[in-house]
């Protein structure tokens, strides 16, 4: 990475100033305004109403459910991300580039379509529906369905961050460790993990943000039972439809706070990655 400070300073030249100004103004309009607007609307009726909206049992349950889904989905996808990156970066095998594409499929598929896929598979009338019902297993309209769709949507995030780094670093260190007689687990813990930990954390942070915010896919499989299967993003829509716009923005503001914390974490991690 090049330190921008070593680049020619903009000085008094016009072009850089115009470009920087343009960048600032556009970002203010496109990115910052929507962020600030959420909080102004959430507090539009004062802090007391805001607190009441947030402390509503249904909102609290939505927060709890969303956190639970993230707590289940993120570690699983970290494990998947590491496994995928390890196999793709460290070995050559037929179909390897196909695998790279397959890992990224969920990234480009509309989450709605992910939801439809799961409905067609696990729904009572889906491919596995009769079998599941015969065994009294409830997947859709319950936590497992929400977790599965979230896993689908967030699966590429860790792999995408870790894979390029492992490819760039090469495997010399690990091979050296092998010749020194280290076991696979030792190599991973002592050599690989320290090298990729910041990318891993970075991927995990993005994965968490996405898991917390997933809307389209979950909306297909949730059934939106209040206080049961209503995640926070769905709760935003539900409050909106309950004609409680301020409440919707209050719920949205908690999600926005999570997003901001995510970005702060990420910025801190980037400093570490340097």
């Amino acid at each position, binding site marked *: 990475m090049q330190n*921008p400070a070593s*680049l020619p300073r903009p000085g008094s030249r016009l072009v*850089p100033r115009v*470009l920087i100004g343009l*960048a600032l103004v*556009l*970002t203010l309009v*496109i*990115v910052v*305004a*929507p*962020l600030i*607007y*959420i909080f102004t*609307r959430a507090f539009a009726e004062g802090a007391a109403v805001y607190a009441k909206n947030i402390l509503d049992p249904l909102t609290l349950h939505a927060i709890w459910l969303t956190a639970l889904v993230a707590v289940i989905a993120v570690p699983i996808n970290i494990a*998947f991300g590491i*496994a*995928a990156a390890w*196999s*793709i970066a*460290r*070995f*050559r*095998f037929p179909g390897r*580039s196909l*695998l*790279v594409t*397959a890992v990224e*499929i969920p990234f*480009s*598929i*509309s*989450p*709605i*379509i992910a939801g*439809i896929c799961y409905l*067609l*598979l696990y729904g009572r009338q*889906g491919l596995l529906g009769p079998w599941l019902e015969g065994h009294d297993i409830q997947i859709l309209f319950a936590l497992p369905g929400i977790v599965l769709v979230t896993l689908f949507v967030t*699966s590429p995030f860790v792999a995408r961050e870790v894979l*390029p780094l492992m*490819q760039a670093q090469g*495997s010399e260190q690990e091979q050296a460790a*092998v010749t020194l007689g280290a076991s*696979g687990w030792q190599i991973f813990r002592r050599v690989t993990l320290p090298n990729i930990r910041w990318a891993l954390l970075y991927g995990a942070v*993005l994965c968490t*943000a996405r898991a917390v*915010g997933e*809307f*389209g896919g979950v909306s*297909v499989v949730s059934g939106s039972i209040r206080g049961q299967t209503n995640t926070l*993003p769905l709760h*935003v829509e539900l409050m*909106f439809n309950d004609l409680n716009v301020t409440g*919707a923005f209050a719920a*949205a503001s908690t999600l*926005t706070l999570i997003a901001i914390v995510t*970005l702060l974490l*990420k*910025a801190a991690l980037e400093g570490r990655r340097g």
Partner: protein
Amino acid sequence: MTETAAPIRAKRVLPGFTLSLGTTLLYLTVIVLIPVAALILKGAEIGPARFWSIISAPRAIAAFQLTLIAALIATLINAAYGLLMAWVLTRYEFPGRRLLDALMDVPFALPTAVAGLSLTALFSGNGWFGQVLEPAGISIVYTIWGVAIAMTFTSIPFVVRTVQPVLEDLDPSLEQAARTLGASEGKIFTRVVFPQILPAYLAGCTIALARSLGEFGAIVFIAGNLPFKTEIAALLAFIRLEEYDYQGASAIALVLLFFALVLLVISNRLQAWAMRYRGAE
């Protein structure tokens, strides 16, 4: 960086091949491939004639058209904005640069439904932007422009984040050489810098386009969901589902799936090209 970076002999040396590949394949199969296969199976049930009549129905055509046009508008906006941001963030030092850099990831971190809610309120008649735009006769909410703006917002990071690292890694001596030869800054950019970032730039634009085509959460709030005017394809699939029309939903979903996969393959090809480009230097 390139595929050759993983030496073939590593296969024999490093442990964990079976475990890691097995885990990856099993997980991908269960979480991604089987559900997608369920969709394709459902699509196969429909039969070609019926499939064609679903996706060529006027409302479906209108939805595909709208989705594509709005996604192209969004991608064009992001192509310009993303390039500008990548350039400004890597080439100039100014107060607030790091903050600006961090802000580029907001659309990744912010749930799309929240973004949609906020953008809708901002641009509707009584919102901050709507108050200015509506009297001027420009309406954004419930028009194709609303759809495009929601898509733009959610795909902002893709162009910036693919171009930025390439710009950072560029060899400054080429530019300096051009400068000493008396080339104007504009000429240096178009002749020296741009060709080098082109593959990454195109890859970023492609993935932004793919993301825009599939975006749902942000758009349903701002689009007004008017058939033939502001109904996007993903929403039409959702509505077909709610109408209990599984074949309709599956057929539309399959078309979107197909486009997403094509764009993904293109993007990966472009990325590989970009890697070779950089590796060759």
